[in-house]
């Protein structure tokens, strides 16, 4: 896992506050910069001011933090101009919050763009296909304005092969394309990028969905330049279709700067060994299937594999293991002590199979695993990985009544062993308040706490009480907490605690929780730093929605689905807040004109651009 992934999934610690008019009734947020809009029709400044501005520009070159830059731009017009001239990275957390042309007019020398589109619940099929977040209008604006653009990073955007072609044609210095959870493109677009971006260093495809039909797959790997390349990172484990392995092997051989390589599940161990032999300098390796392509007892590639890993002295991050054959695991022993990041989240391993590996991973900081290892496996993790910062435990069988073998016991082990834990994502069937409380006390550095009790509305496994007490402890004791996902049986009390103590929380995910409007009110009124709030299947109605009116301008978005909202409440919000875009999303488009009073899905977000013009039929903007 790249470090950037964690950054992208957390809320940005520097709010990307653009020009928001302050809501004078409830001005809570302490980074409420509210400078003037872009100056229109200025006369050029006098000479002395010009000198000062030049000096300022030289200074501001060094300013990289978004929040600092936003603050600097609000000082006065001169500073505004200087900051705009010197900003090199453009971060837009919601592609509909501002129009492309406006961004491009203000910032004219951008080298790197980060752009996010759909709300996160789109990952779980809650946003119908075709909702929006097209990259096209952006790439066209960028193509016309930013000759020096080097890096594009997109998350949850809809990207077509045509967009990729525009990238390849518009930016002669282009170096870095990172696509996370995107869809709409195919191997054809990849071929264009590979072929025409001669300075390409990074091509990272992370959890994207490609549109290839089996018989239309393009051999994109062969399109990289035949000469020595400058490729440093090639990540394509999400590309499900087969590829030309020989071409990859040759590409790796002529890419001396290659540090990160993550291949897809069409790579068996024998091929992996060949790749590793070509690139012993790798730091990050995605191992494909980690399965032998021959049957048992024929050729034993073990020896070569062991020496391949033994020769890879720089490996710090391993992933892949998509169809792991555990008998080959001992091959990675030589690198375990150096690993800082290990992703077993596709490997169906038992505790016995995990144990000999994890015992050697003393320096592990990031560990992703399946719950097949059980509480016993987590005990081994807790005893071996004292430096662990991030843990994710995914369910092997993600259904509500599956036999998950991790529980509160495993969480307790982790809390006792991994005291430096900062981020945890934990899927389980049952949990206890006691274990959550223990974690809150043992791991005070927690910044991200995401607990998913897969059975909905489930109380404490032992006491039968709601899970309020556990989450209360988390928000009370983990004073650095900025991201929280709750689950289990929760009453309004839980939200009262969150509102009372969760003062730094920026991202909150709620599902199947709460009793009444009061729950949501507590959160809206109490969580002063709240940026992203996503709620599903919880009994919050219009009254609670309206209670949040003073705060919505300080947030990036609010998502509410399968709650108790109606058109009346949503319309009132839209009426009251002109700079909010209030979208009501339906699953199917009814034939009749009259609208249904109940609102199934609400997505509202602040925006300078007003109602978007690319709205599909199933979305209504109020």
């Amino acid at each position, binding site marked *: 896992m790249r470090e950037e992934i964690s950054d992208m999934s957390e809320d940005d610690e520097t709010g990307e506050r653009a020009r928001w008019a302050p809501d004078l009734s409830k001005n809570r947020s302490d980074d409420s910069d509210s400078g003037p809009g872009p100056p229109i029709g200025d006369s050029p400044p006098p000479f002395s001011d010009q000198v000062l501005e030049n000096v300022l520009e030289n200074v501001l070159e060094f300013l990289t933090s978004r929040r600092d830059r936003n603050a600097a731009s609000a000082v006065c017009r001169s500073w505004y101009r200087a900051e705009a001239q010197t900003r090199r990275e453009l971060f837009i957390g919601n592609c509909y919050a501002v129009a492309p042309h406006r961004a491009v007019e203000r910032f004219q020398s951008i080298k790197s763009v980060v752009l996010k589109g759909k709300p996160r619940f789109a990952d779980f099929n809650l946003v119908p296909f075709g909702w929006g977040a097209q990259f096209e209008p952006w790439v066209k604006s960028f193509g016309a304005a930013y000759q020096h653009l080097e890096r594009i990073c997109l998350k949850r955007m809809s990207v077509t092969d045509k967009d990729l072609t525009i990238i390849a044609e518009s930016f002669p210095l282009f170096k870095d394309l990172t696509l996370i959870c995107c869809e709409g493109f195919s191997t054809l677009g990849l071929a264009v990028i590979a072929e025409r971006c001669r300075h390409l260093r990074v091509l990272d495809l992370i959890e994207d969905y490609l549109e290839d039909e089996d018989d239309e797959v393009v051999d994109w790997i062969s399109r990289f330049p035949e000469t020595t390349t400058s490729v440093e990172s090639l990540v394509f484990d999400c590309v499900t279709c087969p590829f030309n392995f020989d071409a990859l092997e040759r590409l790796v051989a002529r890419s001396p700067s290659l540090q990160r390589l993550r291949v897809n599940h069409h790579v068996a161990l024998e091929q992996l060994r060949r790749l590793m032999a070509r690139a012993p300098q790798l730091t990050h390796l995605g191992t494909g299937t980690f399965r032998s392509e021959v049957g048992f007892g024929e050729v034993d590639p073990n020896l070569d594999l062991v020496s391949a890993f033994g020769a890879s002295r720089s490996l710090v991050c391993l992933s892949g293991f998509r169809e792991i054959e555990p008998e080959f695991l001992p091959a990675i022993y030589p690198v375990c002590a150096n690993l800082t990041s290990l992703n077993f989240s596709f490997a*169906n391993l038992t505790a016995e*199979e995990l144990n000999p590996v994890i015992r050697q991973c003393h320096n592990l900081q990031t560990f992703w695993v399946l719950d097949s290892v059980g509480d016993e496996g987590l005990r081994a993790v807790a005893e071996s990985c004292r430096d662990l910062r991030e843990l994710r435990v995914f369910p092997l069988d993600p259904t*509500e009544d599956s036999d998950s073998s991790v529980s509160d016991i495993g969480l307790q082990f982790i809390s006792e062993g991994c005291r430096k834990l900062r981020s945890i994502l934990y899927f389980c069937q049952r949990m206890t308040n006691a274990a959550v409380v223990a974690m809150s006390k043992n791991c005070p550095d927690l910044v991200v706490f995401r607990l998913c009790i897969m059975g909905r509305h489930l109380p404490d496994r032992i006491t039968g009480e709601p899970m309020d007490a556990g989450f209360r402890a988390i928000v009370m004791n983990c004073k650095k907490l900025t991201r929280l996902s709750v689950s289990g049986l929760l009453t309004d009390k839980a939200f009262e605690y969150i509102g009372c103590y969760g003062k730094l929380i920026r991202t909150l995910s709620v599902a199947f929780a709460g009793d009444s409007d009061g729950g949501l009110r507590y959160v809206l009124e109490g969580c002063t730093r709240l940026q992203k709030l996503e709620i599903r299947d919880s009994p919050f109605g219009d009254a609670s929605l309206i209670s949040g009116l003073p705060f919505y301008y300080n947030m990036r978005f609010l998502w509410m689905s399968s709650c108790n909202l109606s058109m009346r409440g949503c319309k009132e919000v839209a009426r009251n807040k002109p700079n909010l875009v209030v979208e009501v999303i339906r699953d199917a488009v009814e034939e009749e004109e009259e609208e249904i009073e109940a609102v199934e899905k609400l997505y509202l977000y602040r925006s300078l651009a007003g109602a978007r013009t690319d709205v599909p039929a199933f979305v209504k903007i109020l």
Partner: protein
Amino acid sequence: MEGEAPRLLDLIPKDRDWVGKGVCKVKNGIEEKLELRLGLPGEENEKEEKQSAKSAFSLSFSENVSKRTFLGSVVTNEGKGTERKASGAPPVAHGTRTINSSIANNSSQTRTSNAPVVGWPPIRSFRKNLASSSNSKSPLETRDGGPVNGNKADSNKKGCFVKINMDGIPIGRKIDLQAYGDYDELSSAVDQLFRGLLAAQRDPLVNEKSGGENNQGIKGLLDGSGEYTLVYEDEEGDRVLVGDVPWKMFISTAKRLRVLKTSDLSVSSINTVSRKRAATEC
């Protein structure tokens, strides 16, 4: 876990087609309605509640405590649920749910019923189907057609790989059940697989690949006469002695194999096929 199975079986009326754990996998009419039904918590039918609650619980946690307490909290929800429905706009029906209070349902049913809720648990789609893909995977080249990557094609048929673990040996193996024609072939394959490992466990100086003269074969797997016995786990998770059903039926129902010490087997912990038949409705 197996030890508690008889108690559950006693609870179930004889016309129910259930064995083992009480998770709803039944096909009779009432259960079907329950499976489809997904309401908000609090929509309950008192009568069905107790029985369904008992039967709906899997054996993965303490039955008695959680049943009582869960029912306790369920009742609380019911009270609130009724209030909610009475005031203001009704809860929005979501996706596959129908709000039909005449259908017997309760929170435990909505939780453990097999009807899926869209997007729950919140797992991205590429992380689903891991359990099935790791148990029975096809050869690499048949997955997406076209061996563009030059993988050598062994065969075109899908393999039926199941995990096999042996008592005392920490690392399991996988075997392709379809590679064998009958139980004898399977038995000798298991023997081959584990013989060397077993010897190595007993005597660390023995190399796994050393000559077989000194290695004792693993015999009597199927008839209980040897030191070890072969059992399998079926779709419902029950352990069954290998050898009773026709071979073809075996390879389609076996999900996992185990080689257990014969001395460790107790009569009650292993189902034989005949016992399973007696418990089920033909």
